[in-house]
Structure formats: C-alpha cells, structure tokens
C-alpha cells in the first residue's frame, strides 16, 4: 500500500518536468515555424543544430547540443531542404559556379561538376548540414590529375602504348588484328574522354580557386562561409 502511494507521488512530481519538456518542444517547434514563415534562414540553421552553430559561428567553446529537439524535424527534413535550397544554390552559383545540382529525390541534391557531356557526379549536397559530401574515388582522381605528375605520365604512356600497338596491328591485316585495333580504339577514346573531363575540371578549379587544395579547403568551409554570408545579409 505504502509502495503504491510512493509511486503515485513520484508520478505526480513528474508533471512539472514533463510540462517543461513538452513546453520546450512546443517552443522549439514554434520557433522553427516562425523562422520558416519569416524566411529567417540563419535562425533555421541555428535551430537545426545549435551546438554546431554556436561553436562555428559564435565561436563558443562548449556549446550544448539540441539534438533532442531538432530530431523532431527529421521527418520534415526533405521538404525543409527544398525550402532552404534555392537560397543556398544562389550562393553556390557565385562561389562554386562550376557545380550544378540535380534533385534526385525530395530534398536530395546530386552535385554535377560542369555542364559538359560526361560531366561527373561529385557526390551529394547536404542542404540541412550545408555540406558537400564528395564521392571519394571521383575527387581523388581529380586530385591525382592535378597534383600528381606520375598520374598524368601514366595516362600518357598508356595512350602512347595503345597507339603504338594499333600501328603494329595496322601492318598485319586480319580479323584478330582488326578486333584488337577496335578494342584499343575504344580504350583510347575512353582515356581521351576521361582526360578531357579532368582537364575541364582542372581549368575550373584553377580559375576559381588557384589550386586543388584551396578548393577542397573552401569546400570544407561551406557551413561557416554560407552562414556568415547570411549573417551579413541580415
């Protein structure tokens, strides 16, 4: 009997706590709703991840996270991303003009480098976290092409070898030689196409960032740079 009474008291004591927790959630949702209706992008991003915002933008050392609140937005994040993306894309068009974005499903944006044929997909733009999530093999290939002379040399050697082999095949007419030549020709075309794409990517990186490392560094600062841009705009 005493035990039951104690439990009842404990439960009653929880009411203020629960009220408080629920009020926090209501306050949070009210705030984010207001920020959306006022197109207050900066506040939206702060509410989505206050610890990151305070740390990166306000430079607070030990900011408390608000995941228990921002988790509530998880189910609406695709639509939220669609709301946030036009502003972000307008910014990216200025600072990363060679990137183009294709919505592959609601709120998910694929990054295309360039508008030329065979333009490569570089990864995904995380609109909620304001981050480029690059596809490692693709970006590594560009880094090697731009920064590793042996990578380019290997490509050149490969091409030379294929051309040399074809000259030999041309002197030995026959079905096998013709097939081998055709295969080599296809490989030459593939290598040339890849090289053309890499050259175009390099051209753009050098034009806008000077070097690959500077490009990567700037791409890594997107969250801070974009929010500072919004801050200045406000």
């Amino acid at each position, binding site marked *: 009997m005493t035990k039951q009474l104690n439990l009842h008291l404990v439960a009653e004591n929880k009411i203020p706590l629960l009220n408080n927790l629920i009020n926090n959630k209501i306050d949070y949702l009210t705030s984010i709703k207001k920020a959306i209706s006022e197109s207050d992008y900066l506040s939206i991003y702060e509410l989505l991840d206050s610890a990151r915002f305070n740390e990166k933008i306000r430079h607070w050392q030990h900011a408390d996270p608000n995941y228990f609140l921002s988790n509530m937005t998880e189910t609406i994040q695709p639509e939220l991303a669609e709301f946030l993306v036009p502003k972000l894309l307008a910014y990216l068009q200025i600072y990363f003009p060679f990137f183009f974005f294709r919505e592959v499903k609601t709120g998910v944006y694929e990054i295309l480098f360039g*508008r*030329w*044929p*065979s333009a490569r997909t570089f990864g995904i733009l995380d609109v909620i976290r304001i981050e480029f999530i690059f596809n490692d093999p693709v970006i590594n290939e560009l880094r090697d092409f731009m920064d590793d002379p042996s990578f380019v040399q290997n490509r050149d050697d490969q091409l030379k070898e294929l051309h040399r082999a074809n000259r030999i095949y041309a002197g030995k007419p026959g079905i096998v030689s013709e097939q081998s030549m055709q295969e080599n020709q*296809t490989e030459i*075309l593939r290598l040339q*196409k890849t090289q*053309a794409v890499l*050259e175009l990517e390099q051209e753009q990186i050098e034009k806008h960032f000077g070097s690959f490392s500077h490009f990567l560094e700037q791409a890594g600062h997107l969250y801070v740079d974009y929010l500072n841009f919004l801050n200045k705009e406000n």
Partner: protein
Amino acid sequence: MANQDNSFAQLAIFQQHLDLDSSRVAALSHALKRFLSAQNPVDNIRTIRDLMQVQLQFGPLAEFAPLFRFDDGFWLSELFIKLLSFKDNDFFSTLDGQNKLSVGLRSRILPNFEFIFVPAAIAAGGFYLQEANLQIRILYFDICHQRLFIEPNGLLALFTSEIGQGLSTRQLGLTIQTLNDLAEVLLEDQFVLDLNLIQMENDAQLEINKADLPVAVSDKLFILAQANQVDIVALDDGFLLNLNSSLKLYFTEVVDRIGHAQWRFRVSDKDDSETFLSVLLKYAWFRNWYWDNIQDLQIAYRDEFFLG
C-alpha cells in the same frame, strides 16, 4: 551539164535548209525576245522554258548551227542571272574576260571558278550546275518540274578544294547569300527547294541520314571541342557548342515511339546569316570530325537526284 544540174539540186536543198533554219531562228528569236522583256520571275522562268522547248522541238539547225553555240545550259545560266537581278544580285555573269558571252556562269567574287549546267543522266531529267574544271556538282535544277536541290557534299568539297580553301569568309558568305537569293525568287514560282546546309534561318534543322548515332561519335565531338577550347554543353536532348559569343551549334536528338534517335544540327546566330556550311568551313576541327564520321553524320539530302 549533169554535174551542173547536181550542184543546183544541192543548192536547192541548201536553200530549203536556210528557209527551215530561218523559221526556227525566227521562233528562237521571238522566244528570246519574250524572255528579255519578261518583267517578273514567273514570266522569266516560263519564257526560258518555252525557249528551251523551241530548241528541243526544232532539233539542231541544219546550216546555221555553227553560229549558235548556246545550248540549254546557256539559257539556264541566263535565267539564273535574270532571276538574281530581282534581288539586285549581280553575282553571276556569262561574260568572259573579253566581255563576250560564254557558256558558263562566272563571278568576280569567285574568279577561279566557272559553273556550267550539264544534263542529269537520271530518269527525272533536269540539270546539274557544276564547277567546270573540278567537275563538282553543287546543285540540281529542273525547270520543268520546278525543283532546286543543293548537293551538300559538293558545296563542301568545292570550298575545301585547293582553290576553295583560299576563299575569304566574305566570298563564301556572298556565294551562300546568292544561292539563298535565287531560292527566294524561285519560291515565287512554287519551286520545290532543298537548300540543305546553306539555310540561314536559325530554326532550320538539318537531320542526319541515319538514326541512332554511335556514342563514340559524340564522344569524339566532346574530346575535339575540349581540345579546341570550344565550350560544349550537355543538353537533355544532346549538345550545344558555343562556337563564339554569337554563334551556337545545336546537335540534338528526337527519340521516336520505338526508341530510335533521330539526330539533327541547328545553327543559331544573331543575324540569321550563318549556315551549317559556314560552320564547317570556319572550324577545321569540326569539319574533320564531320568528314571522318560522314557515314554516321551525313546530312539527309535528295541523294536520289545526285546518282552517278
């Protein structure tokens, strides 16, 4: 005495020939007079057709023949000159260096070329206009069935020949403009036209003969464009080449209901003055790509009229 009788008999025949020739020449003269006084394109075409008909019906002159070197080709040349005059275009002339009439069409714009009409050895009849020395056919003309078709490869071959290569952009432009002027006048008489790669309108589409372009061909275009620093853009339905700030070349496809892709070229510029031919002539890398892959890229044309 017998020999004398015989010579009189010969002279009597000669006199009869002269009579016959005179009546034919009078008819020809009459037809020519009507042509010279014709005031509009339709009358000009009709009167030259009548004149050619007079020549055809009467057959060769028996005695006057050495005096008349003007065949149907000559009359067609004269017709072209007269039709172009309606566009204030004096590009062609049949006068030679000594200011005498000659059979071929000459132009001070293209001083090293002479164009002559030769009968087309096809069932449809008609004539080809071809460069006399290089024997390159540039167009097919049929005055009876009212047709003018450009031979795309002929024009390209002419302008990329050893002599043609030396021509300036202005010379090429005036030539293309002249053929367009001629087509415009012929339209007044309901001619069927195929101007093919010399169409100047920005909305002119040049379909290629074959469907389903091999990927390797478009890959090569991309590689060459990049190597020649030409901006190439991927479109949903093909490619756009920004050749310069005001000249664009579209190479796009239309997919039919069973999935076959029909590819086409379109040239767009701000003055509506550029043509696919001028693009081919200006950009050697593009022309080489076109020639190297001609089996897949041949622009559709009235090839049945250019046999042989």
